[in-house]
């Protein structure tokens, strides 16, 4: 598995990864999150754990279990940390804690290094016995509902360190605040090269015509991803250039709002024969890959975003991406070089028209985008960074360490 990255990932990333893994040989490294599938966190863990194991690290991945009330609460926490007003009661926080307490009884939490992903399992810190504990935050905390953050930070401040995806997501808390961007796996089913017939198979399965340019957005049906805004932008662009729109997304088990947003989108699309709304089951990775590869332009018109990994996935396929200038998207899209950043429906529509009318610009942009992802957003770089943080934690107080 690891050898398959040779010739794809930057060679020194692979070298440093091996050096660090040798230092953590047989040491235990535990990751905990709240869903086995759906969303960027689960996808990265699915790919990262086997590589860590192959490198000789005793890596484990555990998922906390909860009832629908728990996931409703954690969705509200998630939304309010991204700025949405939500009402919270002491009883809700107690339920959040109680579910974590029950999980702590079932899980083996002993490890040399533990990474807890996002707010759902954050209270597990109360049950820490040994090791280095890091809270990995994948969401944008730059403008949270402050009462929610204040409550949650009671847990976070007990960790040894935090990791944020983007510097501006970090809060001022008195522990180490590392910044590590997430990544994609170029070898996964979602990102590997596909044969022509594999792409065609997906297109015919969903009855997608190939006679016109395809505009695509792949994301959960979530208001922060602005699927209705994508339809509006498409309708503006379509007045000038004939094209079709595909909105494709998987439901996530920790997202009870998905169904509601999906109905809103269906209603807004109003049986337009050129809009394809695809609700993909979990593990539809090959289909997503094929859709991205057959698209002419890919949108990620988020109005709030954690990091927005679908941007890197699309860029890796050499596609020009138009993304909302929020969250981690500006780190991936260098405006005018590796894609376009937009701030409105009108902006998105304009860039769609520009790219449809200038295929040579679109091709050059896609090529630059792929190289930008290769050097900055592949899985090997992220694993390298996690191990580096662990290595620094074992050299307390030093800001420069030589291997």
């Amino acid at each position: 598995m690891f050898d398959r990255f040779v010739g794809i990932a930057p060679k020194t990333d692979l070298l440093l990864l091996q050096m660090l893994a040798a230092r953590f040989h047989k040491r235990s490294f535990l990751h905990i999150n709240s869903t086995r599938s759906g969303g960027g966190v689960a996808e990265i863990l699915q790919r990262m754990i086997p590589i860590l194991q192959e490198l000789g690290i005793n890596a484990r991945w555990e998922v906390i279990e909860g009832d629908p009330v728990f996931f409703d609460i954690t969705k509200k926490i998630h939304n309010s940390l991204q700025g949405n007003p939500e009402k919270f009661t002491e009883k809700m926080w107690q339920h959040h804690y109680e579910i974590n307490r029950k999980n702590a009884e079932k899980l083996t939490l002993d490890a040399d290094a533990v990474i807890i992903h996002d707010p759902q399992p954050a209270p597990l810190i109360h049950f820490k016995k040994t090791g280095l504990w890091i809270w990995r935050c994948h969401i944008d905390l730059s403008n949270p509902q402050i009462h929610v953050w204040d409550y949650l930070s009671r847990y976070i401040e007990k960790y040894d360190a935090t990791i944020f995806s983007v510097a501006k997501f970090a809060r001022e808390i008195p522990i180490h605040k590392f910044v590590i961007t997430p990544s994609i796996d170029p070898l996964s089913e979602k990102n590997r090269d596909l044969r022509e017939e594999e792409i065609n198979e997906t297109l015919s399965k969903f009855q997608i015509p190939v006679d016109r340019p395809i505009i695509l957005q792949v994301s959960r049906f979530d208001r922060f991803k602005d699927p209705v805004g994508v339809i509006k932008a498409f309708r503006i662009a379509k007045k000038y250039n004939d094209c079709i729109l595909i909105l494709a997304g998987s439901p996530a088990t920790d997202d009870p709002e998905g169904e509601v947003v999906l109905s809103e989108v269906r209603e807004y699309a109003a049986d337009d024969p050129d809009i394809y709304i695809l609700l993909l089951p979990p593990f539809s990775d090959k289909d997503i890959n094929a859709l991205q590869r057959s698209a002419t332009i890919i949108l990620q018109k988020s109005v709030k975003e954690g990091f927005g990994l679908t941007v890197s996935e699309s860029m890796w396929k050499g596609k020009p991406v138009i993304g909302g200038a929020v969250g981690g998207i500006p780190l991936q899209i260098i405006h005018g070089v590796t894609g376009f950043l937009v701030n409105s429906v009108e902006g998105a529509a304009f860039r769609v028209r520009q790219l449809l009318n200038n295929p040579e610009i679109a091709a050059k942009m896609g090529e630059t985008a792929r190289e930008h992802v290769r050097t900055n957003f592949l899985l090997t770089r992220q694993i390298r960074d996690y191990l580096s943080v662990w290595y620094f934690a074992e050299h307390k107080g030093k800001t420069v360490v030589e291997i």
Partner: protein
Amino acid sequence: MAEIIEPFEFKQCISILKSTGKKAKDLRELKNVIAGISDECIFHHTYQYFLKGHILEYTSDFAHWAGESLEERALSEHLSNIDPYDFKSIHDLRNKLLEVIDNYLENYPEPREAMPGDEFYFNETVTLIFPVGIRAKNLAEFLTAIKYIDSGSIYYHFYEARIRLGSGIDDFSRWIEDALGKKELAERIRAIDPFMHTIEKIRVLIVEAVEDEVKRDMEVIDRCLTGL
């Protein structure tokens, strides 16, 4: 017997970003935070600017922010004119930054605030140094290696070395002069202005200089043969 030459060991560094949690939305806040923030933070936003794929208009994150986010062109020019390698300590560099900002605030209209989300975020880094497993024993090997290594290795030896060794000299020219005794080539590499090029352009300029030297060395042999 041939003289034993100390080989050049290529190393590289990676830096992991750390947030200080502090940010500034306008120039006065920027000044106040610069006055009190850690040395590591000032180091990151000035010396380590070159580690990123930088825009050649600026020489530090402060100048970059002044130009791109505050859109204060003159201020960004003043800040870009600060050469971090001119200062013996971060303390002196910090004072220079504060002096330039103070002068600007005295002589120009008050700059506007940055747009929300576009504030200046104060960061620092931790740095991990590691050997990349490549050694050059002579100039020809060095030439092959310099074409092959990652840009992070060029950053480490060409930029970071100036601070690490405290002499303002890069590792490449130091080895070429000390181990190979090629003073002229060393000076040609030292003459490359680190501010005016991207890391990839620095690689091209070093390759050109070394290639010329290797060719000249070969031509000496040719001349000897012709002399016979």
